């Protein structure tokens, strides 16, 4: 009995140490590798997305570390090295307190992730909105994007016209609302460095919002299979200062 107790407590101590070490390694990797592996952030939405990735990774580290610690210990210490079928191990059919702790622990961790995710979702949905919000109409078609600025709408000879372009130009620090549609099949409108994505669907308008917060050139890629040249359905976003943006907009020709 005593020797059994000592082996068990020795196992628990060793696994505990292994667990702490692996968790520490996991936390370090989560904090440093995640932002390094992901694209630069050009909006608060993307920033919060990266932060969420880090927090989830940190929360997952002890779980994964515990599993790996037990498995490594089992492989090192509980491996049977004799010949033939091993003798039976101890008859441990259940351990209700441990099971309860495990279930309560995993539920608590899940609840934490849920609370974080739901509050982030709520703040996302509360809308950047505001008085200075600008609307851009996004149209996908096989296999290019076009962006139309309804604020420039006017009529020429009775025909409604406005600025539209195949690269997306946006003013920095201005909330943008995208009304997204498609001319043929579903496409996926994704601004890689801004963390927003929404399907472009024929005869339907979907919306998403973002506020770019960094000047520079960023990527748009299609994320819904749309036929032959799906992989080439990419374009650029150019985030300009407000002044540079109004100059650009004023210089553009208007068409139908």
């Amino acid at each position, binding site marked *: 009995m005593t020797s059994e107790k000592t*082996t*068990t407590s020795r196992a628990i101590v060793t696994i505990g140490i292994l667990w702490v070490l692996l968790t520490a390694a996991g936390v370090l990797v989560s904090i440093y590798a995640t932002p390094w*592996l992901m694209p630069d952030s050009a909006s608060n939405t*993307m920033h*919060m*997305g990266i932060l969420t990735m880090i927090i989830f990774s940190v929360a*997952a580290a002890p*779980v*994964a570390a515990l*599993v790996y610690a*037990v*498995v490594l210990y*089992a*492989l090192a210490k*509980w*491996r*049977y090295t004799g010949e033939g*079928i*091993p003798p*039976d*191990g101890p*008859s*441990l*059919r*259940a351990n209700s307190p*441990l*099971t309860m702790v*495990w*279930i309560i622990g*995993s*539920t608590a*961790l*899940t609840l934490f*992730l*849920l609370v974080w*995710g*739901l509050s982030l*979702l709520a703040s*996302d949905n509360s809308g950047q909105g505001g008085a200075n919000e600008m609307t851009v109409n996004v149209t996908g078609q096989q296999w290019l994007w076009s962006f139309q600025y309804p604020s420039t709408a006017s009529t020429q000879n009775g025909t409604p016209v406005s600025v539209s372009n195949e690269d997306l130009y946006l003013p920095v620090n201005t909330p943008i609302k995208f009304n997204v549609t498609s001319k*043929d*099949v579903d496409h*996926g409108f*994704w601004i890689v460095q801004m963390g927003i*994505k*929404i*399907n472009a*669907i024929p*005869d*339907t308008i*979907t919306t998403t919002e973002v506020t770019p917060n960094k000047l520079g050139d960023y*990527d748009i890629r299609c*994320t*819904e*299979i*749309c*036929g*032959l*040249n*799906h*992989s080439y359905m990419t374009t650029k976003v150019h985030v300009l200062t407000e002044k540079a943006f109004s100059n650009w907009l004023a210089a553009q020709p208007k068409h139908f």
Partner: protein
Amino acid sequence: MTSTIEHSTVSAPALGGGIYRRLNFGTALIAGVVFAVIAWWVAHSLLDSDGRGFSDQVMVITAVGWVVGFELGIGAFTSIGKWFTGRDQTHADEMYLAGKDAGQARYWRFTTDHKVVGVQYIVVTMILLGAGGLLAMGIRTNLLSPGNHFVNQQIYNSFLSVHGMLMILALIVAVAGPWANFVVPIMVGARDMAFPRLNALSLWTLVAAIPLLLGSLAVGGNDMGWVTQAPISNQSGVGFDLFAMAIITFTVSTTVAGVNTICTVLTMRTKGMTLERLPIFVWASSIAAALGLYAFPFFLVVMSLNISDRMNGTSFFIASEGGTGWLQENLFWLMGHPEVYVILLPAVGALLEITTVFARKPLFSYRTSIAGMAGLAGLSVLVWAHHMFTTGWAPALGGPFMVTTEMISIPTGIIFLVLLGTLWRGNIWMRLPMYWVFGFISNFIVGGITGIYLSDIPVDNQMHGTMFVVAHFHYVFVGSVLFGAIGALCFWYPKVTGRFLDERMGKISFWLVFIGTNVTFLAMFVSGLRGMPRRYSSYSLIFEHMNTVSTIGAYVIMAGMLVLLGAVISSWNKGEPSGPNPWGSKTLEWLVPTPVPLENFEVLPVITEDPYTYGEARTNS
């Protein structure tokens, strides 16, 4: 207590007995082709207005002709036909159908013996995995460098769709097909499945579906993705019709098989085999079968509506005519998410079974593990819209679906608890099946945790539709389910063949597949994090390194699978003899002789305890 067993000799079935005793796989192929040609000719003459010979209507009717002809040619309808004309099956007929004394020939025909069906499923699974694996190699070769140097975009897109669907079908049947058929009836102490003829029907219906799926590649392919999203599915050529007909045929096969498994477990258990004494694999198979009965009707419906939009001018999924593509996506994922657990649960059940035997310990927390699996099945029907977070459908439902999806980690955690608790202080016997258990644990923790990121909507807005998702579900399907399926194969191989699967080749295969899986899909996570969308046939140069690494890793997996195939074939007749119970297991299938006789038991056993009495003093023996 003694009992005498009356040995009586049943005479071999009389020769003759009508034409149906000459039906086999060959006659099925012939009848299938003949019926397909007749169906094509009739449809072409009556319906083909543009005269090209291959309109959607013609293709669908031809596919129906093939399936009906194949089933007639294999003899699937002979018994019911005889009953209908008032002639009952004789005992000799039943023995013929069960394949008594028929030798190798019984593997090539409509045989009702559940063990024959199990072996047939092993072969069918290997064919599906092989074909899907070759397409995967095609995909990865094209992605070795940017610029579509290997195949053009249309062929690439067809490879994607057919690879996806072949592998889904392969994994649905990979554990449930061979082992819910071969071992579950023996495990519960039955002489066969509840409905032996339905069992054979499910196998041969699956076989009939495969040529349709592969044939779709030959007639232009379905180049619109395996999720068959509308409206783009309406742009695909007639390859799509065969693709969808293959799935419709497959859903019939799975439904029949699922009903059979559930009825067998509910009605065929031997005396004393209470529900609480069932081996955990029986629970896993039954829960998966029940879940399949819920999920696959959606599959049948969504494919039928999709075909109807193409050939009948309906508009279920066409927004400009009053339908919506979101309906297609909802129906597809109502099937698609439960299906993940239809695939996963039997693999988990098999691995738990292996763990108790090779750790020489009772299953840790039997009831909790059943609750865990039931919890997975229950939650899995409530999470489907997490596949649609970025489609714009019902944004207000985002929160609720996020809640149900993240709750899945609680029953998943229970599975890990049971695995680790069973390993705890065991005498772990590191034979081949156990390697795959440890590989599963390592891979499934990665696949599971990355799923939690994707359930979070702000993160999913970034990650959806990228290689990150592809890497996540391949960690689940390849790293976890395929590992479970191979572990199950290594474990039960001696029961099927009487020989061990070659241990050395098996271990080489394990290390190749394990290393290959992690190299391929870890690199794919990086591609996804850096922003590479999925289903791209070519990519910007910043993704080249990681794609090259993934492709090399994929070749390593292929090498490992070929070594495994070599081991399976070479050990079948030449492996080291194993005897009836080489692992010292206590479940019933190991207590009958090897090869298992027709009808399994001379005398049905009476059960007094569960099969996990490792380390427990026997009260009586």
